[in-house]
C-alpha cells in the first residue's frame, strides 16, 4: 500500500470511532475493558488517539476515568516501545494509521497490552526479559576499548546486506507475542531455561556473522544448544510474518540449526 492510499483518502472525515481498551491498574491487578469514543484527525495514528483519550479520560458511557497509560519513544517505528496488540495482532501503535483500521463512522479498534510480558499498567508492558535473553547469548561484539584494535577486517557487500537486515531489530517483541512457543513467564528464575524466541536467535546470528563478534560464537552456540535454545523453535514461522522490520528470522533459525549441529559434533570430538 502506498503512502497516498494509506492516509486519509478513503476514510470518512469528521467520523467518530470507538477504542476498546484492555486496562489494568498495576502489576498483578485484574484486567478490565473500557471503551472510548474518539474523533480522529486526518492521518491520525493510534498514539494520537490515545493522547486525545488522555486529554479527556471519559469513557463512551460518560464515566470519568484515569488516563490510559502506554509506552512510547521514537514515534517512527524504530524503538519498539509502543508495541501493543491492535485488533488481535502485535504491532507498533505509532505506525498504525487509524484511517486504515477504522475508516468509517462507528468503526472499532481494539487495543491490548502484549500478553507475553508482565503488564506495568494498561498498555505498558515490561520487556526486560528480552534484554535478559540478549545477555544469555552475549549479543555484543567483545571489545573493551583498552587498546587500539586497528582497522577491522574487510567485509563483503553480501555479508553487509545480510547483517544489515538483522541489525534493524528494535527489540519490540512482535515476534515473541506471535510465537506459540514463547510463553509468559512471571518467574525470572525460569528465564534461563525458557525459549529465547526469534528476537534473540536473530541477534545471536547477527553477532556470529560479525567478524569480531564471531569470537564469542562458540559461547553463543553452547547456550543455543541447551534448553530454551534454537531447538525449542516449533517452526510456526509466525515471527517472520509479524516482524515490522521484515527481518528474515526463519533464515537465522535455520542457519543456527545448522551451526549447532556442526558445533555439537565438533564439541563431541574436541572438547575436554
Amino acid at each position, binding site marked *: 500500500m502506498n503512502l497516498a492510499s494509506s492516509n486519509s483518502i478513503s476514510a470518512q472525515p469528521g467520523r467518530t470511532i470507538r477504542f476498546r481498551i484492555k486496562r489494568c491498574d498495576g502489576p498483578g491487578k485484574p484486567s478490565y475493558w473500557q471503551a472510548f469514543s474518539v474523533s480522529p484527525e486526518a492521518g491520525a495514528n493510534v498514539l494520537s488517539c490515545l493522547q486525545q483519550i488522555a486529554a479527556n479520560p471519559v469513557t463512551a458511557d460518560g464515566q470519568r476515568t484515569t488516563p490510559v497509560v502506554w509506552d512510547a519513544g521514537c514515534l517512527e517505528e524504530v524503538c519498539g516501545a509502543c508495541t501493543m496488540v491492535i485488533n488481535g495482532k502485535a504491532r507498533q501503535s505509532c505506525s498504525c494509521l487509524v484511517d486504515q483500521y477504522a475508516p468509517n463512522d462507528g468503526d472499532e479498534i481494539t487495543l491490548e497490552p502484549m500478553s507475553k510480558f508482565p503488564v506495568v499498567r494498561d498498555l505498558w508492558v515490561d520487556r526486560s526479559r528480552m534484554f535478559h535473553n540478549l545477555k544469555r547469548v552475549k549479543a555484543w561484539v567483545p571489545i573493551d576499548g583498552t587498546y587500539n584494535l586497528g582497522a577491522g577486517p574487510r567485509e563483503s557487500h553480501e555479508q553487509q546486506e545480510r547483517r544489515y537486515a538483522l541489525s534493524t531489530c528494535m527489540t519490540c517483541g512482535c515476534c515473541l507475542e506471535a510465537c506459540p512457543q514463547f510463553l509468559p513467564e512471571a518467574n525470572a528464575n525460569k528465564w534461563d531455561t525458557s525459549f529465547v524466541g526469534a528476537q534473540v536467535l536473530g541477534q545471536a546470528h547477527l553477532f556470529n556473522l560479525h567478524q569480531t563478534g564471531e569470537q564469542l560464537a562458540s559461547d553463543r552456540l553452547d547456550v543455543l544448544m541447551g534448553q530454551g535454545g534454537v531447538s525449542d523453535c516449533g*517452526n*510456526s*514461522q509466525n515471527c517472520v*510474518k509479524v516482524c515490522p522490520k521484515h527481518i528474515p528470522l*526463519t533464515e537465522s533459525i535455520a542457519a543456527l*540449526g545448522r551451526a549447532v549441529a556442526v558445533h555439537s559434533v565438533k564439541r563431541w570430538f574436541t572438547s575436554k
Partner: protein
Amino acid sequence: MSNPIGPSWYQRNYFLLRRLHSLTGIVPIGVFLIAHLVTNSSILWGKFALRGDGAGKSLIDGGVYYFAKEVTWINEQVPHLLLIEITLWVSIAFHSILGVVYAMSGKSNTSRYAYQDNWRYTLQRVSGYVGIAFIFYHVATLRWGWKFLVPGGTQWSHHYSASTLALALRGSAEGMTTWGLLVSLFYMLGVTMLVFHFANGLWTAAITWGVTVSANAQRRWGRVCTGIGAALMLAGWSSVIGFAMLSPEAARAQENKLLGKSAHAVPESSSSEVPARPE
C-alpha cells in the same frame, strides 16, 4: 544456570534428545511408514507386479495374491524381524513421549495468527496425538493380538493377511457393521494424520538441521514434501479403502492358493499359527 544443584540429566542431554527426536521421525519411523504404505497399497497395484502370475487374475485377486505373498515373505524370510520390530516400537515410543513433552511446551494461537504455517504447527501436534492413539490400536490389535478391541474379534494372521485384515476393518464376514465402519473411519483418520505428520515433519526437520536455510529453499523443499505427502496419502487411502471393501471370502481363496490349499479351506482354529475364523 539458575538451578543451584546444576543442570539435570535432561538439561545436559537436551540437544541430543531434541535431535534424536527429529532423527527417529525419519529413520526408522518415516522409512518404515513409506515401506508399510507401499506394501499395503499393493492391494490395488499388486496384480501388475506379479508379472506372469498375474495373468488371468482380476485386479483385486491379483492384489490379494501379491500382498499375501509379500506379507508371508516379511514374516518368514526377513531376518531378525523381532529385532526390527522392537527397534520400531522403541523408536515410536521415544518419539511419542518426547513429542508430547515438546508439544506441551507450546500454546497454539491460530485464532489470532491464522497463517498456513501456523496451522501446520498446530496440526503437527494434533496429528501426533491422534497418531499415537492410532498406532497403539493398530499394533495392539493386528500385531499383539488384542482381539477384544477388534469388532467381530478377528485374530490377524500373516497366513491370511488380507482376509483377516478385511474382517478386522469390516467387523464381520457378512459385510460392514457399524463398529466395522467406525474402525475403518478411524483407520482413514489415523493414516491421514500420520502421513501429514511425516510430510510436515520432513519439512521442519530440514530447518531443524539447517539443511534448508533460505526462505526460498524452505519453499522449494515444501513443494517436495507436499509431493511426498500426496503420494503417501494416496497409498494410505487406497490401502484402507481397498481392504475395507475387500470380500474376506474372495481374499481367502487367493491366500489358500498361495498356501497350496483348496480354495475354500477354512483356517484351522486349533493351530496357534493359523487364525480362527470368526463367526
